[in-house]
Every structure is written in C-alpha cells, then in structure tokens.
C-alpha cells in the first residue's frame, strides 16, 4: 500500500472496511477534504490505476467498489495476460466461464491462455468446475466461489453426476408416506384386505403436505423445494405407483395387488423368448424342439 499517496490511502482504508458496499462518486467525495472534485478525480484515478478500485455500472450511473488488499496483491503479481484472464473469470461470478468463451473475449492465443489458466489454477486463484448442462466443457470460476444450482444441477446431482441411490431412497420414502395416507388403517378383525376411502374423501396428501413431511423427516440435508418434490412425484406417477386425485391437487397411492397374476403372454415362454423372431414352424427353431417350453412345462 506503500505505493499510494497519503490521501488515497486514507480514503482506501476508510472505505475498505465495508468492502462489499458500492460507492458513488459523491460518497467518496465526502472523504475528500473540502469536497474538492479535482482532488477526487486525482485520487480515484490513482486508486483505479493501481487496482484498488473497480468501476461498476448501476443503472446509468457509475459506482465504485473497493478491492481488498489480498485481491490487489494477487493481481499485482500477475502478468498482464493473466490479469486479463483473471478479470474475465471474475466477471463470470458463480456461473463460471467456458474456456472457449474466454478465448473469444480475451483474444489470446490458445497456448498463452492455457498457460495463464495453469498458473492461475496453481496459485489457487481459480478452479475448474464441471457443469451439469455441458459436462464436456471446461469451465472456470474464482477459487472461493460456490457454483450456482444451474451449474451443479440441483439437489439430484452429486459431483455433477446424477445421484441415483439418493433419488431411489427418496422415491421409496415418499411412496411409503403417500401410501400410508391413502388407505384407512386396517380395522382389527376387518377381513378382506385393504378397503378404500369413500368417494369424496379429501384427506389425501397434497404437494405441500409431502414437501413438509420430507423437510421434517430428516431424510436428507439437501434443501428440497416443492419443484423438486414434484419431480419425484411425477416419476412415481410414471412408475404407476401414485396417481393424482381431487383434480390433480392431491396424491394417492395405487392399490397394489399381492401376488398379481402375470400376463398370459409374458408368462408363456414365447413372451420372453430371446429367439422369438427366428421361430418358425419348419425352421431350426420351432415349437417342437423349443427348450424354453421344455423347461416351462417341467415346472408344473
């Protein structure tokens, strides 16, 4: 900080205490003795030139943000190419920036760019992240930022990979919960299996009921919104395990039949036959010499 003029230094030191705050030029002016605009201009220019200040645009007006000392030191050590690359990566914030875009913006030679990225990564200024949307693209962002949901893919992804076990566990849990609310408790001595609720019953769980239950159940640390739960419920509906009732506002489990009979077609050997297409009456594979029939008939 020795490179700063005393006035600039005092202004910087006063303002850096709130490093996230955005300053307008009149804000800074209040720190300048006698509110001299000429001095303000010189000071701001000095701070900008040495990288202690950054201009941002808020609406139509320019605002300033003070850069922490660490960050200033960081950029100070960089070469001009590296600094440029760093700036672009920084501007992409939590979204990250694709190397191809970076190349386009910086207009650097690929090898130069590669080298810059390598040094920056080694110094732990930036990190490479994997985007769920474009898993093949190499994307960079600042080291100390966490990627947004769009990049990570939301709660279903762990390390940019769909977490199948997690999803399956949740599916089972949700299904069980809805099932428990879909049928009345078995009355003691009530024979004849599960009986349904009467028509017009409104106690079936709604989306918000289910979301609330998942939240309270300590099933997972991950924050799940109604949209996420809806995706789960949709899958369960596609699996034929749940169905929507009461005009699509609530969910109900589909009654499961224990030991349901299989289809005639798929139970017979032909329905599952791997060589069904090759089978013909006078061909090498036919009903008479069929091994699958043999096996199936032996199961009597």
């Amino acid at each position: 900080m020795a490179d700063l003029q005393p006035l600039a230094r005092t202004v910087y030191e006063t303002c850096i205490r709130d490093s996230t705050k955005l300053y307008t030029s009149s804000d800074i002016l209040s720190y300048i003795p006698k509110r001299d605009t000429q001095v303000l201009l010189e000071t701001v220019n000095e701070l900008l030139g040495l990288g202690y200040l950054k201009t941002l645009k808020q609406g139509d007006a320019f605002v300033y943000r003070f850069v922490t000392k660490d960050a200033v030191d960081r950029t100070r050590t960089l070469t001009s190419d590296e600094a440029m690359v760093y700036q672009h990566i920084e501007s992409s914030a939590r979204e990250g920036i694709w190397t191809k875009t970076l190349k386009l913006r910086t207009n650097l030679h690929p090898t130069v760019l590669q080298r810059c990225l390598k040094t920056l990564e080694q110094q732990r200024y930036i990190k490479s992240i994997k985007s769920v949307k474009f898993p093949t693209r190499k994307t960079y962002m600042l080291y100390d930022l966490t990627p947004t949901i769009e990049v990570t893919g939301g709660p279903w992804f762990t390390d940019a990979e769909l977490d199948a076990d997690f999803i399956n566990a949740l599916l089972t849990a949700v299904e069980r919960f809805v099932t428990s609310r879909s049928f009345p408790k078995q009355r003691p001595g009530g024979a004849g299996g599960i009986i349904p609720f009467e028509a017009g019953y409104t106690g079936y769980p709604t989306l918000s009921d289910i979301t609330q239950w998942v939240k309270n159940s300590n099933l997972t640390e991950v924050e799940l919104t109604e949209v996420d739960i809806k995706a789960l419920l949709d899958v369960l509906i596609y699996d034929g395990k749940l169905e929507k009732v009461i005009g699509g506002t609530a969910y109900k489990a589909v009654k499961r039949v224990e030991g349901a009979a299989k289809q005639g077609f798929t139970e017979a050997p032909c329905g599952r036959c791997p060589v069904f297409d090759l089978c013909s009456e006078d061909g090498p594979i036919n009903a008479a010499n069929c091994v699958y029939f043999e096996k199936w008939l032996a199961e009597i």
Partner: protein
Amino acid sequence: MQQNAVELCTILVKDTYGELSSRVVAILLEYGRSALHTLVRRVKIPEKVVKQTLVVLIQQHLVLHYTHDEGGRDTTYYECNWLQIYELLHSGRIVRTIEERFGAEAAAVVSNFLLLGHARVSDFITAYGISSSKAKTAATLPNGTAINASEATGTAPITTASQISKHIVALMQEKFLVPVQLHHMHPTVDTENAIRQKVTSEQTSMTAAMQTKVKKAIDEKVTEKMQALSADVDNQNFGLKRKSDHQDGRARKRTKYSAAQGTEEDEWEIDGNVVLRVNHAKFLSIFRNEELVRWVETRIGKATSLVYAELLKHLEKSTIGRRTSSGLVDGCKKTVISTLDISNTLSKDIDLVNSIASASSGPNGTSQKRSMANGGSNPFNVEDDMEGDSDDYDLDADLDDYDTPMNGTHDLSSAAAEKKEQLQNIRKHLALLAEDNNAFVTKQEGSMQYGGWTVDTDRLCKLMRTRELEQIVEERFGSLATRLVRIIKDKGKMDEKGLADTALLRQKDIRAHLGILHERGFLHIQEVPKTAERLPARTFYFFFFDEQMSKMAMLNDFYKAMSRIMQRIDHERGLNSMLLSKAERTDVKGHEEELLTKKELADLIKWQRTEEKLLGQLMRIDRQVMMFRDW
C-alpha cells in the same frame, strides 16, 4: 391380416375340422378372395372335394361367398372370414358363460349350435327329438378345445322339444342366438358395394360439378342402408314382440319367431325354419365386462367390483353387440342403469358397509370432515351423510325427494329402511367408481330416483389396453422401461436428454432401454437434423409412442405365441400318441385305473397336466388378443 394370424387360423381349423379344411382355408387366407376354379388349382385337390369342404366351412361361417354378375355370367367368389375362425377359440368360454347364466341345458344347446355353425330350429329340435344320445355323440366327434367343453355339457338331459325351444327363446331374447340373415353369408364389402351400386343407379346422370355433392349423398345413403340391414336384430323389442304373437304388419321372419316361441309342438314344426347362429359379438362384450370387473377388483375392492358386475349385467341385457371396423359396438354408452335396478338384483350377501372406510377413520384422524353427531357405531348412518357431504357427485340432492315423504310420515317400516340403506350403500360404491381416475361409471343427471349411471366402455377399453401394454412392457423390459414409455406417452416426442431429466435417470442408463424398446416396436424415432448435412452427431432423435403401431406389433406377437402353443400341444400329443390311443380305446375309457399300468397312468396324468397348462396359457393370451383387437 397378418402372417402370424394366418398361421394361427390354419392351425385352429386343422385342429377342429381336419387337414382338408385347413388346406382350403390356408389357400384362401394366403391368396385372398378366389373363385372356385382358381381355388381348386391352388389347393390341388379334386373339385368335388373342395366343394364339399367349402360347404362345411360356409356352414360354420368360416368362409363367406358372393356371386357377381360378370359380363352376363355369374361368378362366385369365396373369402375366408378369419375373425370367425379365431372365434373357434372362444367356444369354451361361450359355453361356460351360458352355463353360468342359463344352466347346463342351455349350455348344451349353445354348444350344439357352435358345433353346427348355424341350424334351422326345426332341424335342431328334431335332432334332439330322435334321441338325446345323438346329441351326445355329436358333441364328442371332432377333437379340440371346443369339444372339451361341450363334452361336459353335452350330457345334460334334455328330454322334450318344448324344453329346447324354451331355452332357444330365452337365448334369443338376450341375443345370444340370432337369426342368420343373408348378408351374414356375404363379405361386408360386397354387401356395401351392391347397395352402393343400387343407390348410384337410382341417381340420375350427373354433371361433373354435382359429382362431389352427389357422392356424399350416396355415401350417406349407403351407410344408412348398411345400418338398416342389422336393424332387425338391433330392435330392442325384437324378443318382446314375438311374445305377443298376434300383431300384424311385421316382417315374415318375425312371425316365424313368434310361432317358434309358442309352446304347442305343431306350431314350431310348421314355422321352425328360422335359421339361428351364435352371436359371437355379444359374447365379446360379456368377456369385456368380466375383464372390467376384474380391473375394478384390483383397483378398488371386491365389494365394489361386485356392484359393478351387477351394473354391467344390466347393461348386457339390452346390448346386442356388433363388430365393426372400429371395434365392438354395443350401445353400452347410451344405456342408463338406475341404482334401483342394481339394488333389486344385487345379492344381499355382499358386505357393502365394511368395504368402504369413512373419512373419519382416516389414518391421521385430523381430516375429519363430517361430524359423527349420532356417535354412530355405524359410520354410514344415513342421517349423518345427509349433512356436510363434500361429495362431488351430489348424492344428497336427488335423495331428498325420496327422503322427505318418508321422514314426514315417521313411518319407516323396517323393510323400507333396510332398502333405503342398501340403496345408500350401493350409491357409495358407485360414487367411488365414478370418482376413480378411470371413471368406471358416469353419473347421469336425470329424473331417475337415486341416480342413473352409464359406462363409457370405449374409453375404458382404451385405458385397459394402455394398462395391459404397459404391463407387458414392465414384465418384458423392467420397470425403468415402463417409466420411459409412460413419460413419452405423456409428453409426446422427446429426446434422450429430456427423457433422462424427467425420469431422474442418467442418460447412459436409459439408452439401453430405449434401444430395446425401439427394436421391439414399442417406440419409434423421428430424426430432426440440425444442419443440412444430416450428420448423425448433429441430429436430434425424438422418441415417440404410437399406440396403433404398438398394438399391431403386440397382436402379431400374440398370434405367433398362440400358434406356438397349439403346435406344442400337437407335439406333446405326438410324444404320447401310443399311450393316448390306448387311453381313448372304448374299453379302456372309464376304466383307466384297472387297465393301465402305473407308469402309463402317471404319464397320462402328466400329459393332462401339460395340455391343461398349455391350453390355459392359450386362453390367457386370447384374453389379451380380445383386449387389443376386439374391444
């Protein structure tokens, strides 16, 4: 008509009517409509024999014929009615259904009609009249599935002719037996063409401008006349009119029926020359209804399914059933059945009360919507339900008019109260059926006390088909494949990525499933290139589901599987031919225990078990075929 269906039909005919018939049928199916001389040339059998075979087949309605006037010379064409051949498989079911509804004697009558194809009433009764044992031998002549069933029923003791005619009348009234009309023996296309020709010739010569307009008018007239053809059978009062047999101005044929219906013997002898056949389409709708009831049972519960079965039974009474190109047509949609009708015939043994839980006994106990003011040990206390019912179906509104006078007089006899409560409970079950996502019944607003109900069978069958198809996918390819098929069906066309996102699965996990589903004809792909070069890498692949195509693919597989089962039965029979011929000897029959060795007995039992298993499987696939093709 698919290749596999041809194979199946040939096997069926061979099984029931022998090698000769099957050869003629095979040629007819392969080459389509043929004249006698072409047929003879192709079959390579003497003309006389072919003619005899054709007579048998026409008698059984398996072959249709039509005579054209071709340049002043009449030529008769023969065509195979393969759907009728397929019906050979249904004879067992048909006889069983009749036995359940009308008893063993009626079943014997029907099974004989099935054997004969169509028969003149007088001939039919005379055949019985000579001796009852003749019917017995007739029933056991050929071998095949049909016969196994009729064997059991053919022994029913029918002694008097009046008994037979009584059964026939009963069966006719419910349209299980219908009179054969001339157009039954002709291919539909020919009948339509003939009508069209007649209608067109009636029109005066037309200018080109008028052509389209006139064409439309002709089309309308043709459809109208086609419908009129079957209107005779369609007539609801057909059976009833015959009862009051002293009305004039009716078709000659009808007069005959009314006479046949009479109890005096000489009357049917004079007028008994009506020709009757079994109405297969009616049975199709009965089988369909059975299937619907089974579906309700798995979805809702036993008691509800019994109520539903009763409702459908009422519907069946008024339906005739006709097979059209677009499926089974049977007026079920229009007929309204009242709750009262159901309660009149519903068995009292069904536990209607304990098969539905009221909202108050819900698992959480908090969603109590109704007050249990009466503290009811009976949760279905009528008064309780009258108030605060949140039912969509508005049970209360039309109940009130029934209730008020009752309450006003304060004179509820116990029988009436019981009746009212039963109606109430039946309505609960019906409301449950109506509320279901599949809407098994539809409530009809109307004047009917306690509400009327209709059943939209077309839609239900469609849903049932979808369900069956999904089940097949599930059992063949696993639950992930079902999930994918359902998503694609729901969303239309989708690419792999969208699918993976919706299904919450990894793209690489679903790829294999999609591939196999595509291969088996369940899914189809549309390619949309991003660039003009149509590079595979730069192309979208959208998966879509075509119900019609999948249906055809499935049916084709079904037919093939059925053929294979029939062939396997044949093969198994061949393996045991020695034993079977011994077991079927007249002196051995009935004395198997004494005359067969231990090993032979064991083998015989094993063979019977094998045949049973294969036939059982055949019938189960048949059920699926009906679902996909007929309903």
